[in-house]
């Protein structure tokens, strides 16, 4: 016993070292298993506030660019407004557009604007921090989109901030479909280039062409159907006969500033029903 104690005393530095490394690795592995480590990430309120402070300064630096973008967007919107005003004259109540709009309203989706206060896009596990949290009604598993397309899914919320797992995270999985074909697939990211993602689970007999548009499938309560995700930019047959489909993503993740959080009012009810249904089997 005495030798054992002496052994521990002699090598105490080594044991403290091993202990601290073990704690680090436990933190590392438990966080990557999704939604753990609620406190040790940039959505906790201290880190969130400091990042908000930083972005309140850097926002000024970007002001020139933002102004220019807004002006350009304004011009584009005016053009669109003119075009749609003309088009509206021809619209009837039973047109497909009106139907789709009604479906969205019936499904109770609403949008909430939020600002990105911190973002990474060069790592394998990237995250965004938004300045809206549970106080504003944000819950985990809400979808996040921006003008240019799908951004990601909320994974954790604190009172005034929320952490989003964007498409650019190797653990992100989003159900999508190819426009005008009923085929659905899964959008994943391999961790390399922030401009591209891959489309998986599409059988090889389905013809998918370059330039085909990828939209959300609407098969979950997170995103409504038909939100733009990206365009196919590469379709090659791999050695294993499976198609390799690369998707050029709509949003530029290196420049995200404003995003919309999608609130699906009946999400709870839908999830409860699905859970009950599977339990009864």
């Amino acid at each position, binding site marked *: 016993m005495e030798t054992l104690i002496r052994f521990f005393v002699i090598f*105490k530095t080594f044991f403290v*070292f091993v202990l601290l490394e073990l704690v680090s690795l436990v933190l590392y592995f438990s966080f990557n298993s999704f939604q753990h480590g609620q406190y040790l990430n940039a959505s906790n309120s201290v880190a969130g506030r400091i990042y908000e402070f930083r972005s309140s300064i850097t926002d000024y630096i970007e002001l020139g660019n933002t102004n220019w973008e807004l002006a350009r967007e304004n011009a584009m919107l005016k053009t669109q407004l003119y075009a749609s005003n003309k088009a509206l004259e021809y619209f009837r109540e039973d047109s497909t557009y009106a139907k789709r709009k009604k479906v969205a309203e019936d499904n109770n989706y609403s949008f909430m604007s939020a600002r990105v206060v911190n973002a990474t896009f*060069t*790592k394998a596990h990237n995250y965004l921090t938004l300045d809206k949290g549970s106080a504003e009604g944000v819950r985990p598993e809400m979808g996040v989109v921006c003008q240019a397309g799908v951004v990601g899914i909320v994974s954790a919320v604190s009172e005034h901030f929320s*952490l989003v797992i964007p498409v650019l995270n190797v653990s992100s999985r989003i159900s999508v479909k190819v426009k005008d074909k009923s085929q659905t697939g899964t959008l994943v990211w391999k961790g390399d280039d922030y401009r591209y993602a891959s489309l998986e689970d599409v059988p090889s007999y389905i013809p998918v062409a370059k330039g085909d548009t990828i939209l959300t499938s609407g098969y979950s309560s997170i995103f409504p159907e038909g939100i733009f995700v990206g365009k196919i930019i590469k379709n090659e047959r791999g050695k294993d006969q499976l198609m390799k489909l690369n998707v050029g993503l709509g949003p530029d993740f290196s420049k995200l500033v404003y995003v919309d959080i999608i609130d699906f009012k009946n999400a709870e009810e839908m999830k409860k029903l699905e859970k009950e249904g599977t339990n009864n089997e």
Partner: protein
Amino acid sequence: MNNFFNIQLIIEWVLLIAVQVLVLNGIDYLQLGTPFLFILFIINLPTDMNRIALLVTSFFTGLVIDTFSSTPGIHCAACVLIAYLKRWICKALGPSDALSLTPSFQTFGQSRYLQYAFAMVVIHHALFYFLESGSLNQAGQLLLRTAEAILFTMLLIFSVEYFKYRHSINDR
């Protein structure tokens, strides 16, 4: 170790963490690696400091940075490793009386100090970027990013230390 909670060390710690979190963590552009200047704190801690205190300090420094960059445990692991190896690296690369000094250009000499800092930075960055990528699937890209970040960090460390060195000469 005699004056561990001295005010200068605490100010240095806060400054390095602030610069890391508010400025350097934002450098993500061009897909370059992020430089980690904050490990200069661990590099510059007195070498005669109690080693367990050194390990614990490094762990908490890593934990703070981890919290800000959503990389739980990764900086902790890398910081604790360099804190543990610091003694031997000092012995191998520093001057003969390295184990009773506070590392700087003045005490170590410019070339020995840079060699010592380089060894610490390489070990930290290699472990950090390896854990951060989570796999060796993109080994080429991983190596490139690690190398870029090491260069970047060394450049910053050199600038800070050179500035401190000139400052101390002018004071005399």
